[in-house]
């Protein structure tokens, strides 16, 4: 069996998912052996841009230059896998997607100065622009979930990813429920895979893996409202990492006029 040709690319984000690949210390040498890493510019300088079996793409897309590069990768790759919450959902930089105000925020940072390196726009996930075969979320991705997916791909099988929320992992660990204590916990909304790491440290889930499959936004919203959280704060906290994924879902929530008033 010939080893799959792989490319690893990074766009707007923290490079944490590429770093997690480099953090697979014990398996790194095997990984470079079982695959043919054609391009991985964070790790090496002899990169070849040709046909790929799998392109792993980290980060959201926020400049014209990146968009062109992404389209070129898509053309050359048989399979494109989004890795990390920024590539999958847009990440923190997409938390205000569909709320407007990007121009104002941009000016708030750069003023009226002219930047010619490329034209910038509000960050969006990779699948807003090109077809994506698989999303491996995480902030950052989990080593074992990533390596599990790569092993399956090397064996020409389809990778399996968790399809349930963080709450399930929290129950396995028999953690006391943080939400039950009245603290804001994004566990019910968030895709599992991290091992419920924050609740296991007595800290609430911050939602950094983005929305889980089939989530019930309305139920979480009502529960948090009962615990005394205001509608705006709930939506703001839910959108912190979920960006594009949550932006669609929060439209289902319509605070009543009375609630809006109370929130002020």
């Amino acid at each position, binding site marked *: 069996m010939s080893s799959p040709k792989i490319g690893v690319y990074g766009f707007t984000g*923290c490079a944490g998912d590429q770093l*997690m690949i480099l953090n697979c210390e014990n398996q790194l040498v095997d990984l470079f052996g079982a695959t043919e890493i054609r391009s991985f*510019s964070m790790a090496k*300088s002899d990169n070849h841009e040709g046909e790929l079996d799998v392109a792993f793409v980290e980060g959201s897309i926020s400049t014209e230059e*990146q968009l062109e590069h992404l389209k070129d990768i898509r053309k050359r790759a048989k399979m494109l896998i989004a890795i990390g919450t920024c590539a999958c959902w847009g990440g923190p930089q997409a938390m205000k997607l569909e709320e407007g105000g990007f121009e104002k925020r941009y000016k708030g*940072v750069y003023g009226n100065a002219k930047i010619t390196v490329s034209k910038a726009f509000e960050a969006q996930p990779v699948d807003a622009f090109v077809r994506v075969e698989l999303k491996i979320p995480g902030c950052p991705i989990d080593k074992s979930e990533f390596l599990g997916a790569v092993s399956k791909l090397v064996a020409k099988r389809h990778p399996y990813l968790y399809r349930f929320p963080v709450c399930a992992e929290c129950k396995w660990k028999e953690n006391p429920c943080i939400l039950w204590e009245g603290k804001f916990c994004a566990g019910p909304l968030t895709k599992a895979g991290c091992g419920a790491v924050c609740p296991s*440290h007595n*800290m609430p889930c911050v939602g950094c893996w983005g929305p889980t499959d089939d989530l019930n936004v309305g139920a979480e919203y009502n529960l948090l409202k009962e615990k005394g959280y205001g509608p705006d704060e709930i939506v703001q906290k839910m959108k912190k990492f979920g960006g594009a994924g949550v932006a669609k879902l929060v439209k289902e929530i319509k605070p009543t006029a009375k609630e809006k008033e109370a929130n002020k």
Partner: protein
Amino acid sequence: MKTLEVVPLARVEGDGGITVTLDGKKVKKVTLDVHEGPRLIEQLVRGMKPEDDVNVVPRICAICTLSHKYAALRGLEKALAIDPPEKAQLTRDLMMLGENVESNSLHTYLLALPDFLGYPSAIAMLNDYGDDVKRALRLKKFANHVMEVTSGRIVHGENPGLGGFGKYPSKKQLSEIALRARELVPDAVRAVELFASFEYPEYPEVDTNFMSVNAPNKRFGLAGDTILISKGKETDAEDYRKLTSERVVPHSFAKRSDYKDKSFAVGSNARLINMGERIEGRAGDLFKEHFSDRWLKNPLFNNLAQAIEMTWALEQMPEATEKIAALEDPKRTEATRDTGSGTGAVEAPRGVLYHHYEVKDGLIEVADIITPTAQNLDDVEVHMKACAERMLADGRGDDELLPALEMIARAYDPCISCATHLVTLKRL
């Protein structure tokens, strides 16, 4: 007119490049370009509660994640008048030591060393320098473990919070860290020996200024409330704007900083230049043995400084863990006010990182983050330009020039994601 380009600049974190503009034999301009897209994080955290900000801002950078977390905590705790318990302080010190070893081992052995030995990557070095690659991976793995035990996760851990930690490391975890840190000191010393054995070309040498956070109690350390300047007066971190006058340039989404209209450098070399005399133990001996005046003008020595600092960080761990283990787990300290302002300054692996916050009625009004790479960008260009001019005058070809410039840029260990997210508010 002729232009030479290095795009992308490999073996650095983030998307950057170098552009050299030549007019005949004259170097018109050398720029380090930042292609990484903007994220506007400081604008996005406006209106958030401080507890939410400390989840979001570490995402600026995966390599300096804990430095961002700690700088934000320091800034916000000042703003909210929170005095964290001693055990929290000590555990934060330990997590910073972990991040320092993680980043310095990655940069020295895996990202910079291939340049000095003439390989395209550390993976390509496996056959000839397999033991050194394994040393790097051992150090990195251990440092990641220290970060995981203290912060909850290797990258973007949420265990450190305002006023303390969600959960403290167990005595068993702490004693294992102490034991392993002692075992790994020789791996760090080997990096010092390697980087001390190389010839450093004189081409990039230009006198510069160095800034670093002044650690308290006349010790070497990674956080403090004042800033040391090698050619200037010690300054309160709250006056960070005077030290980092910012501007926007066309070739970059990262802003630039200068001090009194001149470039300056931050990072391991700056820390050792300003505080190296305070280091004890093996690392202290290594500093005394290898420090020279050339460090003050040649950025390539930052690699050597990182190796010495990594030795220091490992040597600190046994004492640090012992102190933590001796204390009972305290509750997190609550905020005593909901309006105020504060600046947190810490030493990220690549230099001083500032987080400034203004909080009103429990919500963030202003966030201003100035990253080390943004502070270094001017200095990188000054040294690259000097190097290019001298090499061309010496009749060196493009094939020698471009790798030399890459090595200079890489020596600063640039974190381009960080620099990009670096953004400030214009206050009228």
